[in-house]
């Protein structure tokens, strides 16, 4: 199973949810769908109409920038990281 690491600002929206998850999923979309099963509402925070990743959400699979169609291997680590922006 892939390991997914969620950002602090996302965890704050879902009290009690852990940062680290082990999930099955052939691609990023499937990984997020699996997370939605554990954390209802989480997909809406990461994915907008299209569907596509929200513009200011970066996902990395094994350290490489990814989109929803990017394949995820069973040994991969998936980082979800909000872009550095704001004011």
């Amino acid at each position, binding site marked *: 199973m892939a390991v997914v690491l969620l950002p602090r*600002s996302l965890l704050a929206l879902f009290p009690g949810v852990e940062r680290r998850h082990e999930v099955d999923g052939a691609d990023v979309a499937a990984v997020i769908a699996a997370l939605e099963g554990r954390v209802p509402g989480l997909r809406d925070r990461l994915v907008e*109409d*299209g569907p596509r990743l929200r513009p200011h959400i970066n996902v990395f699979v094994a350290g490489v920038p990814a989109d929803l169609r990017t394949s995820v291997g069973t040994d991969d680590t998936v980082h979800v990281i*909000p872009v550095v922006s704001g004011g």
Partner: protein
Amino acid sequence: MPTSILLVGTPKGAFILERAADEGGGPDDWAIRGPLCEGWPIHDLIVERGGGALLAAGGSPWYGPAVWRSEDLGVSWTHSSVGLTFGDDGGTSQEPIKTVWSLAVTPDGAILAGVEPAALFRSEDRGATWSQVTGLTEHESRSTWQPGAGGLILHTIIPHPTDLQRTWVGISAVGVFETLDGGATWEPRNQGVRADFNPDPHPITGQCVHKFAAAAGEPESLYQQNHCGMYRSSDGGLSWTDLTANGLPSQFGFPLVAHPRDTNTFWIIPLNGDDRGRYVPGASAAVWRTHDRGDTWIRAGDGLPQQDAYLSVLREAMARDTLDPVGITFGTKTGQLWHSDDEGVNWQLITRDLPEIWAVEALILD
């Protein structure tokens, strides 16, 4: 003892201020809590009818739009955006929803939400799930809708107080619409309202409504602060009369609130003009009120800075409570929150250190 509550929306989260309702006095009497809603930008806050839950309309630049809900006066919050979507097909033809801009509760307890880009959503389960009121966005004028400086936003929602079939909405820069059939179809309500920035200054739609409100208990009496004038309607928006020439210093401004009991009284804060800096005229702050439906106006600046005050007040950033006399509160783009205990005659500064203030709502808890 009754408690005065102020709900404040800012780009850095919601804030709640409280004090004893009969306390009067100065700024130190108000206790401030925040930022709430995890620091999300919050455009509007309301109180749910009956249960008293707080609802906050927001949109995160990272995590998208949501409606926040608190059952314990802002101590803890949940959020939902289930159904707040144009769908994956819609996402290819127009921008996804950026933020929730406005909220209202209907007489039968449903919640309405206005979003950017402009559309209306309805929740029958206290904000847990949402469905689009497609009749509005399927209006024949939709392809012509253009954004104002704040975006293409549905910022004002006024449900009829007794007729569930009727609701008015305001969209910038599109104008006022009314439904007479529960949202299935919508009619523009902009006759008499100018669009000076348009080659045709009297289009059917395309007016830049900034804010409008209904007189208490008299829903056919509407007051509208527009980009191009201050208007009154006596027929539910079928026609509008410009009141600017009745002594106002400017046709331009954003906020407007109506008295909770007196149908003749409402308050506005004129700004100097859309191309002149959008601050209070002469850099001298004042709230203007009428007691005769806009036929005459009274300027009130006592307590407010009368020189070198380059203050702006946004459309949702003024509110009134239900006390007698009525308390009025407004917030500025530079983070100052001002309050009047005497219906807008005299003013006191509550705080000068909040973020840019987008929204103010006032309520009294017994």
